[in-house]
């Protein structure tokens, strides 16, 4: 075993992410329990046939809650990447293509935003915006666009001076067409890899905010609040906190392998 096939990472990532998404979508089919139904006489039960992940302090089925929480956390995780991706790409393209003062301004803003420690500024933004899903989208949109802008800007800067761009402009193509049809497609592979990597960080951020009581609000099941709930019982009823944490871990490894696999794929194609 000296070298595995290059596609192995990609396949592994796809399999893990696919499984988590299917479980979340098919939640009502993979569990017969209601994730919010209280069972006060059936609290704190260890894993068993009827409750594979046990029950929590309110008698709720932990497996059902883990699966239903996946619906929230995966949805928010993927959606929260889109706005930063769009904003960062647009600013990066403009800064890279036009250069000059616009480029200097965009780079200055990027450097300023990057000076704020990620969780510190996200927490401060949540303090302004209040808790809940909408605040998560807004706070992450305000911060996470810089990575995309930086990558696209650096990539575009390299192209802007190349002959084919000048040729395309000289041939009568509009700026918008040159950027949209010729420069942007070159950045797409890198953007996809970055966005998939970002899903890992965004899901972590959502789960962390929820753990701190500043993210997804109960009773909506979410992995972070579940871990917080289970923290008090961890020495005796470990399953309440351990399973939702494993769900975050497995999901994150999946997206991370997927990003690695995609990066390998693009590298080989070039």
């Amino acid at each position, binding site marked *: 075993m000296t070298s595995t096939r290059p596609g192995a990472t990609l396949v592994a990532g796809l399999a893990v992410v696919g499984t988590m998404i299917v479980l979340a979508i098919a939640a009502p089919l993979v569990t017969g329990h209601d994730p919010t139904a209280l069972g006060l006489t059936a609290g704190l039960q260890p894993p068993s046939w009827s409750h594979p992940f046990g029950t929590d302090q309110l008698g709720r089925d932990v497996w059902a809650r883990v699966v239903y929480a996946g619906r929230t956390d995966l949805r928010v995780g993927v959606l929260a990447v889109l706005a930063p991706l769009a904003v960062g790409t647009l600013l990066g393209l403009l800064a890279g293509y036009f250069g000059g003062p616009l480029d200097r301004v965009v780079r200055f803003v990027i450097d300023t935003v990057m000076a704020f420690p990620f969780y510190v500024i996200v927490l401060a933004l949540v303090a302004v915006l209040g808790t809940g899903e909408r605040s998560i989208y807004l706070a992450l949109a305000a911060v996470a666009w810089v990575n995309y802008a930086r990558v696209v800007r650096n990539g575009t800067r390299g192209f802007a001076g190349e002959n084919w761009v000048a040729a395309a402009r000289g041939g009568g193509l509009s700026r918008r067409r040159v950027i949209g049809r010729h420069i942007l497609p070159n950045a797409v592979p890198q953007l996809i890899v970055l966005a998939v990597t970002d899903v890992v960080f965004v899901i*972590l951020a959502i789960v962390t905010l929820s753990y701190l009581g500043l993210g997804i609000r109960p009773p909506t099941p979410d992995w972070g609040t579940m871990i917080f709930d289970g923290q008090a019982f961890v020495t005796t009823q470990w399953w309440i906190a351990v399973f939702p944490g494993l769900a975050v871990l497995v999901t994150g490894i999946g997206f991370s392998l997927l990003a690695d696999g995609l990066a390998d794929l693009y590298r080989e194609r070039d």
Partner: protein
Amino acid sequence: MRSWARASGRLIAYAVAVTLAVVVLAFGLSRAMPGSALSAQLGSHATDATRQQLAAQLGLDRPWWSQLGTLLRNLITHGDVGPSMVNGESVRSAITARAGATLSIVVLAMLIAVLLATAIAVVSATHQNRWPDHVLRVVLSAGIAVPAFWLGLLLVLLFSVHLRWFPVAGLGTGPAAWLRSLVLPAVTAAVGIVPLLARSLRAQLLEVLHADFVVAARATGLSSRRILLRHLIPNAALPALTLVGTNLAYLIGGTFVVESVFTIPGVGDLMFRSITNRDSTTITGIVIYTAVLVVVVNLLTDLVVRLLDPRLARGGAAL
């Protein structure tokens, strides 16, 4: 050397500009919260008169540019952002009283992370695309994906509850106990940035590994270990120093979260409390202090790297 001084002047001026922008943005954030700070302090039954009186006392009735001016003057003359919205104490003293614990975790975590990441990067780069590289790749993915607070919980369960090696929570009294109580928080905080450091280090090592001078060194018959220690690591060390600066921001935020798991009375703890109390001045202060710390450390690493690396000192670009 003269070009280094000129480049340094530019870097310092840029850092000052970024710092100013940081303060303005943080001020904007605090402006978005003040009404609620008044309610937090007065409760919902306060009359308009008391409300106005308190607003005047806190300077909230003045126009925004005047408030920003006061903030800048306070920062420059006292290094302070003003009194807390909730208890009127100096925000600077509230932060510095707790900064020791937080900074100790940050420094300890950075040391652990650099050592661990270097070891991982050396093994993966020297075994590129063989099984140790693949295994470490999955391990690093897990390091990125694991929620710090959950990992902390498991570490406490194993090392504090079962093995009783470390305290379960809080800060120990006396230097030895204090250090011991910081070990698990530091390890937990380090895990989050090890993958980021290790991946970049691995890429840099691979680049050096294929450089002409290494190929030449190998051709002269030097042992792999000697090449690694004498040529590879020194050449990858400078870029690694830059990485410490760029990953510091993520580490500080991670440390805040870790503090809440281990109930460490640090700056993170102050932050969470201030969010609950809607104490906008304290939140602004923490945001400014941490961001300025990041700017200063990045500036210093930039200056050192340029001083030590003649290629960069000659005016090469660094973004």
